[in-house]
């Protein structure tokens, strides 16, 4: 699915990623954990194609393509989806209009016909149920006036609508109460299949009670410093990140 090799990246002259390597295969769920400022969102932004970052070294292959050579929308058309840590508001643009445009642009890029209104609305009805999103929110302006939890659920709703190959979820759990967390996790689990994969970025272990990862990675100082299974997350919860930091320095 995706292969990230020795990725180095700067922003404003400051090196944030310092040789990150990660491979994700179809059917897998990877969790990336790490302290604040470790570079988790940076990684997500770079994968999605945000251009403030300067890639100084390394390569990323996604579905056989050289990801770093593609534009943001081309990456999206190939099936890369980013659930934003801070979803953006677009006043005056309804969620449904936004999604229909997104779906049709993707279809167009693949040489397919636009989706019919009927098919689209049926899909909206079906997918909004997965995240228990009030159908009213579907017709409201994109994220405008949504509560924090609604914004995050809306991200998962969009993910369901766009049906990506690889979903990167950037702290989708932060700011959620336990019910919202459960709903978001249910969404992610429902959408999981043998053909797709996800990278779940999180700060806390609790999301991983609901979304069971195949691998847990610790990102620290721009690198993956430790990889394990679900138990690693529990260990981190218990001991914090300091022991990892120490271990890394010793190593």
């Amino acid at each position: 699915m995706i292969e990230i090799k020795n990725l180095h990246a700067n922003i404003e002259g400051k090196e944030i990623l310092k040789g990150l390597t990660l491979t994700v295969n179809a059917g897998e769920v990877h969790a990336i954990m790490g302290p604040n400022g470790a570079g988790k969102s940076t990684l997500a932004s770079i994968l999605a194609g945000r251009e403030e970052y300067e890639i100084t070294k390394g390569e990323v292959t996604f579905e056989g393509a050289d990801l770093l050579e593609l534009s943001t929308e081309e990456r999206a058309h190939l099936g890369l989806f980013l659930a934003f840590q801070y979803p953006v508001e677009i006043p005056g643009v309804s969620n449904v209009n936004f999604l229909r445009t997104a779906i049709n642009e993707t279809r167009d890029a693949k040489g397919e016909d636009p989706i019919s209104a009927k098919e689209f609305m049926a899909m909206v009805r079906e997918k909004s149920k997965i995240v228990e999103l009030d159908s009213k929110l579907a017709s409201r302006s994109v994220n405008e006036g949504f509560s924090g939890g609604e914004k995050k659920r809306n991200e998962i709703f969009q993910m369901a609508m766009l049906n990506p190959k690889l979903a990167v979820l950037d702290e989708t759990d932060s700011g959620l109460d336990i019910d919202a967390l459960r709903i978001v996790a249910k969404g992610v689990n429902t959408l999981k299949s043998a053909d797709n994969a996800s990278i779940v970025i999180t700060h806390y272990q609790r999301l991983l009670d609901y979304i069971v990862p195949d691998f847990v990675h610790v990102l620290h100082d721009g690198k993956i410093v430790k990889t394990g299974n679900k138990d690693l997350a529990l260990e981190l919860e218990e001991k914090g990140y300091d022991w990892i930091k120490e271990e890394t320095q010793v190593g």
Partner: protein
Amino acid sequence: MGQYTENELAKDLENQDYKFGFVTDVETETIPVGLNEDIIRLISSKKEEPEWLLEYRLNAFKTWLTMSEPNWAHVRYKKPEFEKITYYAAPKQTKKYESWDDVDPEMKETMAKLGISLEEQKRLTGVAVDFVMDSVSVATSFKSKLKELGIIFCSFSEAVQEYPELVREHMGTIVPHTDNFYAALNAAVFTDGSFCYIPKGVRCPMELSTYFRINAGGTGQFERTLVVADEGSYVSYLEGCTAPQRDENQLHAAVVELKALKDAEIKYSTVQNWYPGDKNGVGGVFNFVTKRGLCEANAKISWTQVETGSAVTWKYPSCILKGDHSVGEFYSVAVTNNHQQADTGTKMIHLGKHTKSTIISKGISAGDSQNSYRGLVQIHKNAHKSRNFSQCDSLLMTDHCGAHTFPYIECQNPSAQIEHEATTSKIGEDQLFYCKQRGISEEKAISLIVNGYCKEVLNQLPMEFAVEAQKLLAISLEGSVG
């Protein structure tokens, strides 16, 4: 790939061409250039006008000679040379068309190029269109249906001939010829325009629409529109404008007067796309327009405008809220690009008790353009418990364009309630990135964001017109993918 930045947008926007830059080969009849009493007499006699109207024109001309051009607006331009303008240009066939089939095919083609196909509009929406090309109305439709209801919708010249007492009663009562320099000029030399009268209690069953277009070179377009909605009536009136691409500046100085009698409602919508000049600021239309409406008791006037054209725009559709409980509304989108300059806004004059006004203005500036909102809210002594809400938003597409807001408030009644909100924002990188991450191209993303930003205004337009306006906005912001 190349990331989308405002600077790139700026560059891309400069490359967009005016879509309506063509000249139709309709033979026109013009009169000698220049402006003096003889020219005015000539115009009046060509139009076989009654004596009182000639007097009115000459009177206005005398007043005009004593006035000087206003210069308080936030615009700079080379003043038109009024001596070098042809004040009358009419398509040569003077025959009036009985039906749509009789209309010159060339002219139909012109209309098709305008983006709104009249035929399609007629078929799909039942819009009655009064098409004003170079100042003379050449096609009116659906007249007989309107006639059954007693609705008068015709060219101004025809109204002068057919309904002189109505024209004489109302013309110049809302925008007197002494009002301002351009209103005086218009009153002296206007060639045609539209006239509309809705009788008591009648709800006009279709949108009435006029298409204005400047075609001949070196001509000024001075049309007058007069809409009178009698007690308890309703009308929705649409006005669209385009002009071909020419190097010299063309002058457009129109006057629009609306009168909403007791309990009546007038909705007046404009989509203005006059030629804005090229990317170096050469050519383009000077659009100096006086639009004003008067509301009697419980009446309502709503102005909606989408302005994307003209080199210089100077325009303030206003409402005089004379009657108690009357309502005035102003919804505006003004896009400026390259070297365009717009100084536009509204005046809400509250005279009656419990009068209410709403102002929603959305400015979008790109290129090196200057976009100003200028609005006056005036609450007079007797306007007890009057209310105004104003919201003026500006969206900037580049670092070197300008957005300015000049809200004036004059309040003489302490029971009035006035609210004013203003925001200025730059088109958001975050919004663009969010759209692109979902697979939406830059061009579509800009169009989505801009349309979303203008939604409150676009929502006020009749459906078909709103679609055209959205297309126009997209054209104005087209070509943004490098």
